């Protein structure tokens, strides 16, 4: 009996049916269990409703337990390929978002100065009329292109559709130019396609996982963390390149505490070793790649000895790790990471990661990069967009950043205030995206907003960005609404449903309803021919030939599995100009960029200052969850990590040496000061940088829990270096010093 898989007795559907199915047979597994005086905590739902999570962007399948109309707990949906019945802490923490007492409860209209967070509550009719009026006036005065949409989260689809119908193509998310953009472009240039989300990495079957800068395990992409653990259990080894001894570094065979900003030197030296010692997959390259000879010549002098003074990694260790990584090929993954906007040369660094993947022959191979596709769901038919919008406004003179594959959120912000753009933006709709923390240099964002004629925020919580809007529209959480179905590219194709678990609380409304109401008020009702989002989602599922009832019951339906790697019979093809893997990129050369990545050392900081690095904690998603009181039970403020040897000799702390838990203020190279933040004095980081978890130091009055907790890295990012290839904003280019707080909290 003990061999029975745990999954076999987790049943979905109503709790009643589940309990019945568990029934007698399995109880015998626990035959010797004493009858216990312990009361049942009564958290099992009388209804168990499957949906998918929105605490981050990964979209894991969850089961919401509802008892007497209240969500008691959220568990993983065993049927869902991304969660496989298991959740990260944030997934469980959905109840903390749903029952956050600080949620936006009524539509708000600004009464004070922008940013002063002074509002009055109004009816939905009044708020929507105001939005409609603003949109009509803006279109009349400046044309529809003058309105931009910033969007993050799955419910944003309704607003993207609204904006296209209205006639603007200025739709962006910080998830591109502030996050994964350089990676997408680096891989497109090399293999003809980007990675998307979820990244198609076969971590589960890899024999060597190399993390360079990424910190999977703290970066809690559920499926990838599950796969990493499975790989470790199967004997796979980790190589971790990180200035900080991350959680993953603690599990690694090799930890390379690299000097920040020098990753490209290491990657080139690894290529040198792999090529000079002929450790690459020669047949694979012969068949699929072009530019090997140029690459070989390019890295001929990039020896481990050359890389040593740049990276601080001993030459022997560079050579040894190169051999180790190559020894596992093709089941060897150099993880490309996700937020890759570091130093402004990020596309080239990602190109180097992609080129290494090609040398290892891991693209399109088991244990490497898979090439999946999604289920085909037809769109709901609606009137085609009749307005041909003007060019997107995000690039100055339309000449810079030639390979930007998506609209740049930072570019739209710039185009709101600077002169070099084809036209200026005059209105913003901001959906679920706290631009004050997401874009570099919040002062610049605030300046842009001050010049706007019209601004709307749609959000669940009163984040900083809401404080700047003319109208704030309260959206209900993912647990109270139906969105479009989700069918991403994944090795096991599937379609998942987001359905309401309880009725919307307060006067909050689902995004689809808000977008549709606005459309109806500005003469765009033809574009929203569906009664509600259910009709929309059901239509798509039915057209694809699946059962809506089954989907709603299970939360997810599996599609037909197709080959995703060569081992399964997939024939590789590459959507590059040459039709091959491009180790040497003629496209880059023609645009005046290095056709093969070239290393240049990062700029050093002022003496006595530390490079400011930032990252993730497993219990939080950016600044979106810092007000979540349930999650705060395991992480309630960020800390600044500083090397213990360095801390002992820190100027300003002579009288009272810095200890873990002491509060300090960070001051950056431009004199900007942070909120007080606790120090973590540790051996786990190099001495030339400090580290903090992103998303803290909130200032919004409405975030009564998060406000003033920890420090905001965004606040200190007054400088950024723009990637000339695709416009990503490299944000790891700021330096800080530490100042003691006069009165120390113990």
């Amino acid at each position, binding site marked *: 009996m003990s061999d029975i898989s745990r999954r076999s007795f987790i049943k979905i559907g109503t709790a009643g049916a589940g309990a019945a199915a*568990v029934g007698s047979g399995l109880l015998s597994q626990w035959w010797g*269990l004493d009858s216990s005086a312990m009361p049942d905590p009564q958290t099992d739902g009388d209804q168990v409703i499957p949906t998918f999570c929105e605490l981050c962007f990964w979209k894991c399948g969850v089961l919401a337990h509802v008892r007497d109309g209240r969500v008691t707990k959220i568990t993983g949906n065993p049927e869902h390929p991304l969660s496989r019945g298991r959740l990260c802490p944030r997934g469980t923490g959905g109840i903390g978002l749903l029952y956050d007492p600080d949620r936006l409860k009524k539509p708000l209209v600004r009464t004070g100065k922008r940013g002063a967070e002074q509002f009055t509550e109004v009816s939905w009719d009044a708020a929507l009329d105001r939005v409609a009026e603003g949109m009509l006036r803006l279109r009349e005065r400046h044309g529809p292109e003058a309105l931009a949409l910033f969007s993050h989260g799955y419910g944003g689809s309704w607003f993207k559709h609204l904006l296209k119908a209205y006639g603007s193509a200025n739709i962006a998310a910080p998830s591109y130019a502030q996050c994964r953009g350089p990676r997408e472009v680096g891989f497109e240039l090399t293999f003809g396609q980007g990675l998307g989300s979820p990244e198609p990495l076969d971590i589960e079957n890899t024999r060597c996982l190399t993390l360079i800068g990424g910190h999977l395990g703290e970066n809690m992409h559920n499926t990838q963390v599950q796969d990493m653990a499975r790989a470790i259990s199967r004997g796979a080894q980790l190589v971790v390149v990180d200035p900080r001894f991350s959680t993953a570094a603690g599990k690694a065979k090799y930890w390379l505490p690299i000097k920040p900003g020098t990753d490209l030197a290491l990657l080139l030296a690894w290529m040198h070793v792999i090529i000079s010692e002929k450790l690459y997959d020669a047949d694979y390259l012969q068949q699929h790649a072009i530019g090997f000879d140029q690459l070989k010549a390019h890295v001929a002098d990039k020896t481990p000895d050359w890389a040593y003074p740049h990276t601080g990694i001993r030459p022997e260790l560079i050579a040894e790790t190169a051999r180790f990584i190559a020894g596992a090929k093709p089941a060897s993954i150099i993880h490309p990471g996700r937020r890759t906007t570091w130093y402004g040369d990020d596309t080239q660094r990602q190109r180097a990661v992609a080129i290494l993947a090609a040398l290892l022959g891991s693209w399109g191979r088991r244990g490497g990069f898979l090439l999946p596709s999604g289920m085909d769901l037809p769109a709901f038919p609606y009137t085609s967009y009749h307005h041909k919008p003007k060019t997107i406004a995000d690039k100055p003179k339309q000449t810079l950043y030639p390979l930007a594959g998506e609209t740049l959120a930072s570019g739209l912000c710039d185009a709101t205030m600077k002169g070099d753009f084809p036209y200026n933006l005059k209105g913003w709709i901001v959906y679920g995206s706290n631009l004050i923390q997401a874009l570099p240099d919040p002062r610049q964002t605030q300046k842009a907003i001050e010049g706007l004629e019209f601004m709307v925020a749609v959000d669940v919580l009163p984040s900083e960005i809401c404080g700047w809007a003319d109208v704030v529209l309260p959206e209900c959480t993912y647990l109270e609404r139906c969105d479009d179905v989700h069918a991403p590219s994944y090795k096991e194709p599937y379609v998942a449903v987001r359905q309401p678990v309880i009725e919307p609380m307060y006067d909050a409304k689902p995004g689809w309803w808000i977008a549709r109401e606005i459309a109806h008020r500005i003469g765009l009702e033809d574009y929203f021919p569906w009664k509600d989002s259910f009709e929309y989602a059901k239509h798509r599922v039915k057209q694809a030939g699946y059962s809506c009832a089954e989907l709603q019951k299970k939360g997810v339906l599996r599609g037909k599995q197709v080959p995703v790697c060569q081992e399964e019979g997939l024939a590789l093809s590459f959507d590059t100009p040459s039709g091959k893997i491009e180790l040497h990129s003629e496209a880059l050369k023609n645009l005046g960029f290095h056709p093969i990545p070239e290393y240049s050392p990062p700029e050093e900081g002022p003496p006595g200052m530390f490079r400011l690095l930032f990252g993730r904690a497993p*219990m939080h998603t950016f600044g979106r969850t810092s007000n979540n009181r349930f999650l705060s039970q395991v992480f309630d403020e960020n800390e600044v990590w500083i090397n213990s040897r360095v801390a002992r000799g820190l100027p300003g702390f002579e009288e009272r040496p810095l200890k873990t838990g002491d509060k300090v203020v960070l001051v950056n190279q431009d004199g900007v000061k942070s909120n007080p933040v606790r120090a973590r004095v540790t051996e786990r980081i190099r001495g030339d940088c400090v580290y903090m978890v992103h998303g803290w130091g909130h200032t919004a009055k409405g975030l009564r829990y998060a406000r003033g907790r920890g420090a905001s890295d965004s606040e200190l990012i007054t400088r950024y270096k723009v990637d000339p290839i695709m416009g990503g904003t490299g944000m790891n280019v700021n330096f800080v010093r530490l100042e003691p707080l006069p009165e120390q909290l113990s």
Partner: protein
Amino acid sequence: MSRPRYVMTVDTKTCVGCNACVLACKSENGLPEQGYRDWIVTETTGAFPNLFQEIRSERCNHCDRSPCVSACPTGASYRQEDGIVLVDPAKCTGCKACIAACPYGARYVHPRGFVDKCTFCVHRLTAGKQPACVDICPTDSLTFGDLNDPRSAVSRLLKSRRHKTLLPEEGLLPHVFFLI
């Protein structure tokens, strides 16, 4: 067939210390804000750059020689024959003698006045389910089962993997095992 002896194994090689177990426990058992039945310990030793790290999901060790049970004046703390150590909230006066006796810090006083701790989710076991922390764990680091059943997953893990218990010198025969 012998009576079962319920134990848990915690794989420190795969655990990332994400706290999913802690929060799943809190919502499953409806714990108060200040109450934790399990928690994460991250231990780092050595000096930069030669560091070693162990991450553990910890909870009540359900000791064979449970000092909390001996210390309890009312009989509220008791040990079932299957090895699970429990507190009967109805009998507990909140005197904290058990808290003083437990070297693992596994117990806390519930705001309603009784002492609370990990139950291995005994209410779930009786329904044929696993403890909530085991079910949620994204890295599958937690395994629960019967040590007296040689075919159980925990028995196999303890046979095939190096493991340790916490504070063995206390001699309490703890029954949460850490795979190292």
